[in-house]
């Protein structure tokens, strides 16, 4: 605590010295800087960019952790990274990739794209949107601070008790996990509410639910899943925090607690979470495949039905993560059948994608390349998904590398590849610049080949007796060979990711000259300039059909506006979300270091800012019609 204050004060002095003292000019300078702009922004496009960039940063961190794991496993008996250090790396790899990489990348795309796709000027709750981002961000930073202050969590991303209790994980590691995830979780829940309300209430006139683009549909279902799944994690983390910090006995079997409760709570959240990260990828696939096949999405209605059904079933299958816990054959059978059922709507989606391409004119631009790579990869993940759904067979697969292979096929082969497709597809819309096609191929081919090299052999590693989360394995030629192949594959994925990073850097060096509709798109976001103006739509469009933008391009008629040109109300920027999240961060750090005063102080600060916000009279500002046309003229000139 004392060191913290000293460091803070020292930093403040340093800032003062470097900036020539605290004065009005400095304040103005700060207020006009890009950093301040992004800290206070409530614009969904900027928040989307923040999410996306943070997601990429964490993706790289998680990737480095994966690299360390694969280096350790290159030979049996390797002592590069063993014991507790290895457990820390594997825990942080899983936690980072799921919560801090996949989720923000998804939220990034959702934030940028969804309001544009439904023809809205903003999201329903711009303030909440910013708060959601900053909470996520500070939670993620808090979690990763564990590396420097006391050691990272080491009980696996599932953090099963009793390993995660004080007695068996005495350091602060698991506290970082509990509080870091709790803070990001609150942010996530806010974002979910925000997206759901935006989609339900703020669609452009005439855009009925069955005229919504597929990505918007998957966002809606994802939000619903988050809404019902996150609280289970919140409760789980709360109980674990009580056990660790305040001596409660939820998971202490000697005091009547139960380890199975943690597993239930975790997987009631955890299984929907899996669909939360894959659904948006489904949405991206639908958009990309239909655009680059120049065809309407095949079986749109059944696609919507399938997404809703997957979301619904996603809540009734969590026990399939717990077949070996010993809940009995009745429970195992019921959940097995429920799980197998999910294969049906998933199959519907795959066939619909295939038949969207059937008869189309397939243009293999980078987004389409990733989309096409997604299909067989994800189908394989789905197939092994059915296989692990069968309890007797799962007794062999459970907690082995077979399962590791399975979920990497869905998470990397599904989510990550889907997100790459989405990134290349919407990059022009986000930044007004296209990513380079040639570098895109350098991204795609090494990545997908490396991916299969890494994860395909892991199926067999599992069947040949290698449990997951181990830092060594029996010195047997087959295990060794497969592990070496697996590690070699990582090189491919690394090259691909580096190409992507290079591509991003290159794109920012070029002029922002992307056209409004670079891909001959079908949905509304392509009807407005890239990047869109702050208010998105000068006049809200009137929607008469699915793929309205495509239809108006075909018929040569502009999309009709649904309102006359008028002044546009915009929310004003605010630094309160940042401040609230900072308060949460302080509170979290306080509880982790057992500085309860600091923990309480942070919480109080949070609520005070919340009340300040409630009293603040924020009328926002208005953009006048003549300003709008001015902008338009400028863009044309």
């Amino acid at each position: 605590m004392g060191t913290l204050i000293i460091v803070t004060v020292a930093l403040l002095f340093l800032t003062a010295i470097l900036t020539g003292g605290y004065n009005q000019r400095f304040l103005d300078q700060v207020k006009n800087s890009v950093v301040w702009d992004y800290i206070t922004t409530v614009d969904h496009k900027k928040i989307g960019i923040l999410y996306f960039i943070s997601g990429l940063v964490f993706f790289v961190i998680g990737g480095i952790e994966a690299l360390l794991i694969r280096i350790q496993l290159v030979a049996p008996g390797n002592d590069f990274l063993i014991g507790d250090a290895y457990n820390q790396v594997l825990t942080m790899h899983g936690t980072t990739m799921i919560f801090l990489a996949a989720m923000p990348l998804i939220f990034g795309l959702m934030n940028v794209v969804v309001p544009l796709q439904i023809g809205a000027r903003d999201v329903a709750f711009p303030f909440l949107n910013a708060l959601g981002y900053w909470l996520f961000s500070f939670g993620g930073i808090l979690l990763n601070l564990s590396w420097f202050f006391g050691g990272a969590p080491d009980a696996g991303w599932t953090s099963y008790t009793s390993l995660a209790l004080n007695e068996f994980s005495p350091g602060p590691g698991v506290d970082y996990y509990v509080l870091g995830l709790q803070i990001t979780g609150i942010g996530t829940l806010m974002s979910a509410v925000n997206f759901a309300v935006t989609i339900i209430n703020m669609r452009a006139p005439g855009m009925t639910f069955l005229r919504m683009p597929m990505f918007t549909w998957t966002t809606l279902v994802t939000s619903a899943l988050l809404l019902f799944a996150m609280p289970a994690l919140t409760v789980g983390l709360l109980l674990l925090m009580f056990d660790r910090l305040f001596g409660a006995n939820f998971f202490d079997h000697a005091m009547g607690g139960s380890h199975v409760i943690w597993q239930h709570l975790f997987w009631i959240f955890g299984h929907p979470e899996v669909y939360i990260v894959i659904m948006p990828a489904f949405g991206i696939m639908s958009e990309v495949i239909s655009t680059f096949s120049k065809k309407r999405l095949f079986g749109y209605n059944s696609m919507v039905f399938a997404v809703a059904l997957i979301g619904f079933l996603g809540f009734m299958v969590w026990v399939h993560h717990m077949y070996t816990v010993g809940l009995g054959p009745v429970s195992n059978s019921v959940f097995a059948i429920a799980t197998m059922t999910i294969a049906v709507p998933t199959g519907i989606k795959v066939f619909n994608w295939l038949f969207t391409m059937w008869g189309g004119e397939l243009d293999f631009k980078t987004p389409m390349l990733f989309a096409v790579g997604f299909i067989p990869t994800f189908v394989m993940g789905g197939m092994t998904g059915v296989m692990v759904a069968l309890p007797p067979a799962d007794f062999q697969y459970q907690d082995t590398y077979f399962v590791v292979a399975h979920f990497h096929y869905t998470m990397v082969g599904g989510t990550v590849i889907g997100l790459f497709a989405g990134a290349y597809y919407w990059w022009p819309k986000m930044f007004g610049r296209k990513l380079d096609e040639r570098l895109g191929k350098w991204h795609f081919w090494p990545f997908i080949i490396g991916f299969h090299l890494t994860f395909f052999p892991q199926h067999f590693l599992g069947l040949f007796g290698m449990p997951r989360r181990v830092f060594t394995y029996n010195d047997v030629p087959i295990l060794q060979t497969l592990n070496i192949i697996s590690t070699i594959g990582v090189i491919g994925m690394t090259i691909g990711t580096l190409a992507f990073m290079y591509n991003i850097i290159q794109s920012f060096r070029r002029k922002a000259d992307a056209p409004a509709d670079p891909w001959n798109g079908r949905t509304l976001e392509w009807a407005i300039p890239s990047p869109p103006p702050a208010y998105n739509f000068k006049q809200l469009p009137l929607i008469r059909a699915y793929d309205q933008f495509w239809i108006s391009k075909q018929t040569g008629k502009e999309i009709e506006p649904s309102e006359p040109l008028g002044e546009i109300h915009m929310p004003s920027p605010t630094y309160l979300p940042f401040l609230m999240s900072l308060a949460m961060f302080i509170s979290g750090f306080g509880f982790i270091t057992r500085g309860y005063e600091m923990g309480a102080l942070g919480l109080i600060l949070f609520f005070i800012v919340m009340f300040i916000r409630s009293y603040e009279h924020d009328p926002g500002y208005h953009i006048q019609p003549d300003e709008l046309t001015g902008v338009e003229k400028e863009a044309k000139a």
Partner: protein
Amino acid sequence: MESQAETATEHLESSTLEGKNKILGFWLFLAAETVLFACLIGTYLALRGQNMGGPTTQDLFDLGLVAVATGLLLTSSLTSVFAVNALNQKKQKGVQFWLGVTVLLGLAFLILEIYEFVHYTSMGHTFVSSAFGSSFYTLVGTHGAHVTFGLFWITGLIIQVARRGITKETAPKVFVSTLYWHFIDVVWVFIFTLVYLLGKVG
């Protein structure tokens, strides 16, 4: 938006898009809260037998006291309905009065709960004494924390209404806070049934 606000005098709270968003968003938030309490109740039901030699639910619970608390909270829900009625009739004083009564009743409930907790603790039933203790205090305590937050919130709104009057900004806030209050009430009904009644009878 402006013209809409003038025509829809009956429901000022949903006269603007912001108001509508707020109300729908809040309903969705309550859905999430429902899952939260469902998880806590489930945990409690799973662990309530694990008293580790400490007092059991039969030894502890005094239905009389809890019934009084329940009565207070149910009544406060009713008074919050009166507040919304006053809101619809744009009676600023009425809104303030009924919200005030709601806060007082909630406060009385909270005091009873604190008394109850102190009493249980003295009987050897504490947060750390057993899994039953942990789950009981966490469930009922989380509800209590929600009540406490509601008290601050509604008090804040009384001040806001007093300052700004009933506008299309304050109206959704008041409406949403009463939704929250009803929700807390419903959760309490479940707690009353599943914790106290079941603990005494079951």
